[in-house]
């Protein structure tokens, strides 16, 4: 089984540096997801691993061998593209056997392997159709089938589900997770959908502006973001950021004043009290962490309520302009304009310094 290692990898287009010094280790059989906002370099990094883009500097190792200059087809990888990239003039069967045909595999062997992959993905009835005669989900399955047939050590996916409708996306997501288990292969998966990232990944790689912002398990990245960017990117609805100023530093922790909320003072227990008095900080509060008993209390007015059925999202403010998002099970009766007290346990709060780095 094959892992993968990137060491100080860079990519420049002319003077534009798109990937800036990325180092990452992917263990065998791991499901790694690259997430990040549009244009942060996820696809570029994936294409560098695939061999479709030259690596400007740094090393790429797949299975312990340096692969910088190796042709895509000799890297032991297979790729599934966002647009599926099926050959429109070939049938499903021919599409799936295409790589083997050019690798000089004998005909009956191709048939055997294609049929095996077709069985895994339940493509039996579609084998003699052309891609133009398939639905989006079916094309997606064929694209995955084409990748499986090559028996790669590493699967690369570039936003494979983004062209599907919501329902099908959930369905394919589950199928992908199952497939990963049964194939026991290494997967690198690019998406900007954080739900996909959270549900599929063993390891999430959050990227920003060509750099890795944080690497960790889904829950790790959610519970312990290294910085404001990761905290803001992972989690839905988005985390609330509230501005504050350090008012006192003591053994028990940092006392922070919240100017937007009647100068309320909150003490956050922390061992790391390197932030001096007077510095501004940001308090991050997850919408899901609000309750009716927490020590920290916000007196708010409801501006808008979104009912999702089981859960409601309450957007409430205190007139100063900023809205706080609260996720609650008991929001059914709430109407805009109503008074609303949001409580939260200070122990649940995340604290960031003026540079957006995590303090606590």
């Amino acid at each position, binding site marked *: 089984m094959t892992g993968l290692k990137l060491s100080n990898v860079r990519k420049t287009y002319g003077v534009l540096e798109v990937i800036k010094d990325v180092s990452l280790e992917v263990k065998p059989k791991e499901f790694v997801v690259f997430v990040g906002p549009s244009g942060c370099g996820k696809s570029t990094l994936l*294409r560098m691993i*695939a*061999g*479709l883009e030259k690596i400007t500097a740094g090393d790429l190792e797949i299975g312990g061998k340096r692969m910088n200059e190796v*042709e*895509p*087809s*000799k890297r032991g*990888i*297979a*790729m599934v*593209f*966002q*647009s599926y*990239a*099926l*050959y*429109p*003039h070939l049938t499903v069967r021919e599409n799936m056997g*295409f*790589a083997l045909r*050019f*690798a000089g595999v004998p005909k009956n062997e191709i048939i055997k392997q294609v049929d095996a992959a077709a069985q895994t993905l339940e493509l039996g009835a579609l084998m003699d159709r*052309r*891609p*133009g005669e398939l639905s989006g989900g079916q094309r997606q399955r064929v694209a995955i089938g*084409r990748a499986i047939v*090559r028996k790669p050590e590493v699967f690369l996916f570039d936003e494979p589900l983004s062209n599907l409708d919501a329902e099908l996306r959930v369905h394919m997501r589950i199928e992908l997770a199952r497939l990963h288990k049964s194939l026991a292969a290494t997967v690198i998966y690019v998406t900007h959908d954080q739900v996909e990232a959270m549900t599929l990944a063993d390891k999430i790689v959050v990227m920003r502006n060509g750099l890795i912002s944080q690497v960790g398990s889904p829950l790790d990245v959610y519970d312990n973001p290294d910085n404001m960017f990761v905290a803001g990117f992972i989690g839905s609805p988005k985390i609330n950021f509230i501005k504050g100023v350090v008012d006192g530093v003591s053994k028990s922790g940092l006392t922070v004043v919240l100017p937007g909320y009647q100068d309320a003072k909150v003490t956050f227990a922390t061992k790391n009290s390197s932030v001096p008095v007077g510095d501004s900080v940001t308090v991050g509060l997850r919408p899901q962490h609000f309750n009716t008993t927490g020590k920290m209390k916000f007196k708010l007015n409801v501006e808008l309520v979104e009912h999702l059925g089981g859960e409601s999202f309450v957007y409430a403010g205190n007139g100063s302009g900023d809205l706080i998002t609260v996720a609650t099970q008991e929001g059914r009766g709430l109407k805009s304009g109503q008074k609303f007290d949001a409580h939260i346990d200070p122990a649940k709060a995340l604290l960031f310094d003026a540079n957006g780095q995590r303090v606590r």
Partner: protein
Amino acid sequence: MVYTLLSIAAFVSVFPFLWLIVGATNISSDILSGKTTPGHALFDNIVKLTQQVDLVQLFYNSTKIAVISTILTLIVASLAGYGFEIFKSKFSERVFAGLLAMLSVPFAALMIPLFVTMAQLHLINTHTAVILPTVASIFVIFYFRQASKSFPMELRDAARVDGLREWQIFLFVYMPVMRSTYAAATIITFMASWNNYLWPLIVLQTNEMKTITLAVASLLSAYVPDYGVVMVATTLATLPTLLIFFILQRQFVQGLLGSLK
């Protein structure tokens, strides 16, 4: 109202063709007097035509030139158009701009240098001399480059991951995917070659080398042209291009339906 206009337009565009076919069945004096009904002289006209020119040789020459020229032009132009679009660089963009600029040079200005070149290569009065200058058709290169913009780049990536070399991608992915483009380009190039008049007139000097288009023109320039014969010859000369058009039109539509959907 719309239908009336369309009918008039259709009639105007079809009339010369009908008149050509009707004319082929009449004798010269009837055509000149404006007779528009079919006559009985078709067979006579054909016989007269075959007495004046070697039809088989003419068709053979025209077909040979048009087929070879079309095949070579398509190969060269599609490779070039694909290359210009896929392997873009500052340098290649400049070369392409230069090519486009050359489109504005009229053929009349190139004729004499071209003739001198052919003479030095000892190619005067050969079919090679007719074919060679048409092969690197800037217009067809441009056409293929524009069409290549619709060729999905991810297909090329997929093919690279599947282990195809660049020439294999061109041969086994690009060409079949773009077959409707090839069909359209075939029609354009074949017709242009078949109807090419000026350059063949200059370089082809003996009768056994000439094309059907040249022969038709020379019938017209006789002291007293026999218009019945001219009409028959013109009809015959038009048939192959029509044929190509109808054969490929079907594939053209098929290509659109079957491939990029």
